[in-house]
């Protein structure tokens, strides 16, 4: 469970989030809202990449601002740009890189990396230069590199923004099938039909918080 308790955040003088209180227990939650409404700031707080200047966040009772490492062990994060998430030259190495600190033998790391790639449609790409994959494949690789760590929660900040429609759909379908709790930040409203809960942010406040249909309707009204 992810809890935001009276979250406020400011960058210098500029207030970005104001009194956000949410308890996320549903498996598939989406954050939507206009550019600059504070979605990414809020999402980054879940794994302690940003610390709130007011209030606190709890992930299963643990505060990422205090115990960043413990929380990051359990929260995976997929970013928008796959090029800056891939840190090793080949796909297999990149997935295996995530397992460096697990005390596994090299053969075991490679075996798990291959298994992960095969499960998400990248079978046989172990030795392929990671930067020569297509945009959709790169984002799948970024997902594999996170999931191989078996997190309990997966936060995705606009993971489909750079993908074409087919890959967008496929990526979100994959997310929906994962056993993890998912927090998805997105502008692709059409993809949220199967979500359990949609939170609409507007200028740093929660403007709507509901099932996809009513929440998105509220959002569409808000921007028109």
């Amino acid at each position, binding site marked *: 469970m992810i809890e935001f308790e009276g979250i406020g955040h400011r960058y210098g003088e500029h207030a970005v989030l104001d009194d956000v209180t949410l308890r996320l227990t549903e498996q598939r939650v989406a954050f939507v809202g206009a550019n600059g409404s504070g979605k990414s700031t809020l999402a980054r707080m879940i*794994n302690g*990449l940003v610390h709130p200047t007011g209030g606190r966040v709890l992930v299963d009772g643990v505060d990422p601002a205090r115990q960043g490492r413990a929380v990051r062990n359990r929260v995976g994060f997929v*970013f928008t740009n796959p090029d*800056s998430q891939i840190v090793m*030259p080949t796909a297999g190495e990149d997935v295996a*890189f995530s397992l460096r*600190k697990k005390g596994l033998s090299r053969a075991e790391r490679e075996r798990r990396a291959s298994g992960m790639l095969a499960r998400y449609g990248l079978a046989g790409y172990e030795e392929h230069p990671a930067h020569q994959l297509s945009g959709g494949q790169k984002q799948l690789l970024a997902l594999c590199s996170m999931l191989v760590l078996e997190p309990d929660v997966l936060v995705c900040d606009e993971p489909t923004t750079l993908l074409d429609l087919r890959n967008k759909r496929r990526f979100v379908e994959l997310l929906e099938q994962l056993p993890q709790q998912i927090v998805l930040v997105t502008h692709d409203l059409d993809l949220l039909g199967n979500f359990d809960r949609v939170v609409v942010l507007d200028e740093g406040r929660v403007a709507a918080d509901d099932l996809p249909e009513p929440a998105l309707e509220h959002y569409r009204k808000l921007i028109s």
Partner: protein
Amino acid sequence: MTPLGLYQPGTSVLHRAAAGHKFLALLALAVLIFVVHSPVWLGVTALAVTLGYPVARVSPRRCLQLVRLLVPVLGLVFAAQWWLVGFDSAAVVCLRLLVTLGAANLFTLTTRVDDLVTAVERGLRPTRRFGVRPERLGLLVGLTLQAVAALSMIAGQTREAQRARSAERSLPAFAVPFLIRTLRHADELGEALAARGVDDD
């Protein structure tokens, strides 16, 4: 576009040699060519490095890419040195450059970063007693190689964008977007590494 010098999968002797041994050989070679002053012996070394390319079965396209990069650089250095210092010293400087770049490139073409990182970590393990963190250094080596590829990609894309706006000759038109994109890449990479638990060991 393919950044130069990224690992190319293969099964040659050079691919199979232990990453640590290859790395030590590369370091030894670097030291060797700076104590050797004879153009003849440097020439022999350069020939040996060149022979490494067919041994590693590097594709002709890759070789051509390297040649296209090296020829103008070496040509320029040679001309400048010849004019300033003389033929002999120009030949020595260029042969040294050729050996270093050729060998380093051959190394990255035949060695997986993961293997190199593992080898460096293992090699540095005894230094832990003096407070060195081998896993940090290993990661540093891996990321440095990766950064070279990322930067060459950003440079290539920036140059394409510049060409699309016919601003090829303008230095600011290249330097400003290049710097901004590089800084942003660094920020994003830092966050992605933190999310993968790299910052907090």
